[in-house]
């Protein structure tokens, strides 16, 4: 009997005990699997050029994609506004998924409601669901704003949010003046970053363009303040804190549009806070008058950027800057826009980051990396790797397009270490598996799902992409700013040293290289 009360065996070890091993062996008689030889043969075949070629030819099947659907981005956005309840119109299962997905990453509650449409709504439309849903949400959760988005069900049947919300207000679901911004977020268009864009645009339009006819459009009276839009960011908790610190050092009047960093970082002190922090309605309104907006992730905010420009704001669109040059651009943009010099403290931090990179670069120089994730994040991380003399050999974005690929190429071309590096728009992690087999790299940068690639190909995984379910609290630390760059550097180095130690740990065989000083 393997189990004991004194030393409880968990699944990790329990099933390795002989009783279980023999049971599992016996089970095979009923599984009728292929022969071991056949399995071995296919395993080997999946590692070949031939397999890769066939794999890259597929144009319909998607296997292990690195993207989610639009409403996830919309829920992220709604969470970034003060006392705002995210309301997704459509099937309820979707909302259960978004909430679980975020909670598994942030290890925090994620509040969001659904209009719970079912068969009858599929036939007659979801108007009644909107009417009852808004009333229930308003009464139960007492938000100051309800931000509506849609699942694909509501989009396929063509529900009209603007009309439905107006109708619900007429029926008294919520007071006429209550703010219910909305965005159509069809899951079959784009990805979660498109949903972020649409949802944020929906909120800005609501407040700036006259609240869907319920009020007057605001008139822009330009001032010297600066807006900041972060984009969909799995490290938002750490990054927003860092961004606010940087703005604070500049002493500039600024507004963060969409900041979920507090609601996903509440204390355990006996009280559950459904709402915490976030951009207030007053802040949204005054953001119209800003001189300029810094958009941290260009591809995540395409429509919003266009809209801001139409309003007369200057928009500085960055590609998720990570590391020295990227952060320099961000900081210099801030300096230019405000007319203030870069604060000495930041300059010192820059020097400290460069110092750390100089100390460590020899360990990373020439190392080849494969990366996947959102388009902007891939641009930012690739630039940082190139700064270190490392090579972002395969850079993949399932939700990246040709425009992104061209931008990646420009990044590669700008560095001698970019020669031979390649970008892969609209590809998935099964493509990446082929790449890692046929053109191996030293390290892989990705999210939790990358661990399957690590298992199959041996490329050590560095977790720096959303979602991260199987490591805790990474999201609490920044990747942006010089401080964030330091954090990213340490991540890269940790994995390098861990791998080196693991490769040299055999006593009497390889441990001559098991150095104590590195």
């Amino acid at each position, binding site marked *: 009997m393997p189990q004991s*009360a004194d030393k409880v065996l968990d699944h990790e070890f329990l099933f390795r005990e002989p009783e279980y091993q023999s049971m599992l062996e016996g089970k095979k008689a009923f599984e009728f*699997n292929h022969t071991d030889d056949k399995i071995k043969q*296919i395993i080997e075949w999946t590692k070949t050029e031939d397999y890769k070629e066939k794999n890259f030819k597929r144009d319909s099947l998607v296997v292990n994609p690195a993207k989610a659907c639009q409403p996830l981005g919309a829920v992220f956005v709604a969470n970034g506004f003060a006392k705002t309840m995210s309301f997704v119109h459509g099937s309820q299962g979707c909302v259960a998924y978004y909430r679980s997905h975020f909670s598994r990453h942030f290890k925090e509650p994620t509040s969001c409601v659904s209009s719970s449409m079912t068969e009858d709504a599929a036939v007659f439309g979801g108007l009644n669901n909107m009417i009852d849903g808004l009333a229930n949400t308003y009464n139960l959760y007492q938000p100051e704003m309800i931000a509506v988005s849609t699942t694909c069900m509501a989009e396929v049947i063509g529900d009209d949010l603007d009309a439905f919300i107006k109708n619900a207000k007429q029926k008294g679901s919520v007071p006429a003046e209550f703010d219910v911004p909305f965005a159509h977020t069809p899951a079959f268009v784009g*990805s979660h970053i498109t949903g972020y864009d649409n949802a944020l645009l929906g909120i800005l339009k609501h407040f700036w363009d006259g609240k869907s006819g319920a009020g007057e459009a605001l008139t822009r009276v330009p001032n010297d303040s600066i807006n900041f839009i972060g984009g969909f960011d799995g490290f938002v908790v750490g990054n927003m804190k860092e961004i606010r610190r940087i703005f604070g050092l500049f002493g500039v009047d600024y507004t963060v549009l969409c900041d979920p960093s507090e609601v996903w970082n509440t204390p355990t002190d006996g009280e559950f806070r459904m709402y915490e922090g976030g951009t207030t309605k007053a802040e949204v309104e005054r953001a119209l008058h800003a001189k300029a907006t810094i958009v941290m992730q260009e591809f995540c905010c395409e429509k919003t950027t266009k809209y801001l420009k139409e309003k007369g704001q200057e928009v500085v669109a960055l590609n998720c800057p990570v590391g020295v040059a990227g952060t320099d651009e961000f900081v210099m943009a801030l300096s230019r826009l405000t007319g203030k010099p870069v604060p000495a403290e930041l300059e010192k931090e820059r020097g400290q980051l460069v110092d750390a990179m100089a100390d460590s670069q020899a360990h990373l120089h020439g190392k080849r990396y494969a990366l996947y994730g959102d388009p902007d994040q891939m641009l930012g991380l690739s630039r940082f790797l190139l700064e270190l003399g490392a090579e972002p050999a395969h850079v993949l974005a399932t939700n990246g397009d040709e425009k992104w690929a061209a931008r990646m190429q420009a990044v590669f071309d700008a560095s001698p270490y970019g020669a031979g590096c390649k970008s892969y728009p609209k590809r998935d992690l099964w493509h990446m598996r082929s790449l890692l087999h046929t053109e191996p790299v030293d390290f892989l940068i990705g999210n939790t799902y990358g661990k399957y690639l690590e298992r199959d190909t041996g490329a050590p995984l560095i977790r720096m992409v959303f979602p991260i379910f199987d490591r805790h609290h990474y999201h609490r630390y920044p990747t942006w700013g010089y401080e964030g760059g330091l954090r990213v550097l340490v991540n890269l180095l940790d994995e390098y040293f861990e791998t080196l130690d693991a490769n040299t740990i055999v006593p009497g065989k390889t441990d001559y290289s098991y150095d104590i000083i590195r």
Partner: protein
Amino acid sequence: MSMTVEERKATNKALIDEVLKAYPEKMAKKRAKHLGTFEEGKPDCGVKSNIKSLPGVMTIRGCAYAGSKGVVWGPIKDMIHISHGPVGCGQYSWAARRNYYIGMTGVDTFVTMQFTSDFQEKDIVFGGDKKLEKIVDEIQELFPLNKGISVQSECPIGLIGDDIEAVSKKKSKEYDNHTIVPVRCEGFRGVSQSLGHHIANDAIRDWVFDGKTRKEHEFVPTPYDVAIIGDYNIGGDAWSSRILLEEMGLRVIAQWSGDGTIAELENTPKAKLNVLHCYRSMNYISRHMEEKYGIPWVEYNFFGPSMIEKSLREIAAHFDDAIKAKAEEVIAKYKPLMQAVIDKYKPRLQGKKVMLFVGGLRPRHVIGAYEDLGMEVVGTGYEFGHNDDYQRTTHYIKDGTLIYDDVTGYEFEKFVEKVQPDLVGSGIKEKYVFQKMGVPFRQMHSWDYSGPYHGYDGFAIFARDMDMAISSPIWGLTKAPWKQAA
């Protein structure tokens, strides 16, 4: 300190009345039917169930797709399950349920992979049948060892009028009667995961049992062949159950569906007895096999030694004296281990109050395990239960237990705030809410990344986990000392 039953009932009633006040009047009336207190002697728990969730209330429920792909089909390891429609559903449910299995993933097994048709606007406008055909071709080329394909419909499929049945038949024929199963589990169907289970069960009946697909798996039956039905092998649950059935002399010929294969499904009609753990998700196919193949089925409960013992005897009662004797041997063999576990943990857990809100069988099945540890379940409810679940629950719960069907976020928070249990067992969406409130919590869907909890080996882990949740020193730190003093 503890209340009398009558006091508890009065308190529950006041509590329910209070939460209902927050709803608009019409909605309060509807929710009132789902909340109640169990009255000893009644045939059910006195609540309505399996009814549409109210919009906008933050239901904890999922959808039919989750019930089919996520629960029933997903764990069948040598098949490829296509999340057919937009990318999200498959992405959020990707490898999230911890259905353990043995196999070379991506080669001969596929459970922890996300296959999707990733619908784009053109697929919505022009239909996705052509794309589905192409997808089957691509799967057959790149994953040649797959033993079958299932098409798990997401919402748009049923709305745009795709004919996935025709595509499945056509492609199956094209690939030498390869198993291809269309499943109409669009998320908008029904009121919860539950209809998805039913649809998935029916798809097995129609397309696996009665399908024209290849069946190539012969073996010689024995009088002791049983199939485990409704165990998804979360954290290895089916394994720590199977080992007991085998120890009592039975031969397990199939696992539905944790660590299961299509061959096991196909061979199940040869079983002498179906042993059913999750009644909610697989009673349909069990009833079907009883009607069509004359296979009896028996529900069992492998949580905690009291229920395991009872269940082993009930299962053995379907067989000869040799099996009955062996069942007694198994019970006797594990007695010392169980006693050691109880001796270790019961003194620390005695009298602790638990509130549950889970799916499937757990809102009732785990109660015995808590009671083995001296704990008391004071409130429970089903995410997607039906009245037959609430009937079965009466055998487990005590007079005066608070019952909440399809509880809303608002209600659950208020109930826990007022009842002040020592432990809440629910899901990931609830976990952090209650932990913030300073209430110890265990996820009772995923076993909070632990497990197995089934069987004797699992009970040791269960007891240890409940103890560490409740006894963690963390809960003494939630109030700052300068505030405690005040």
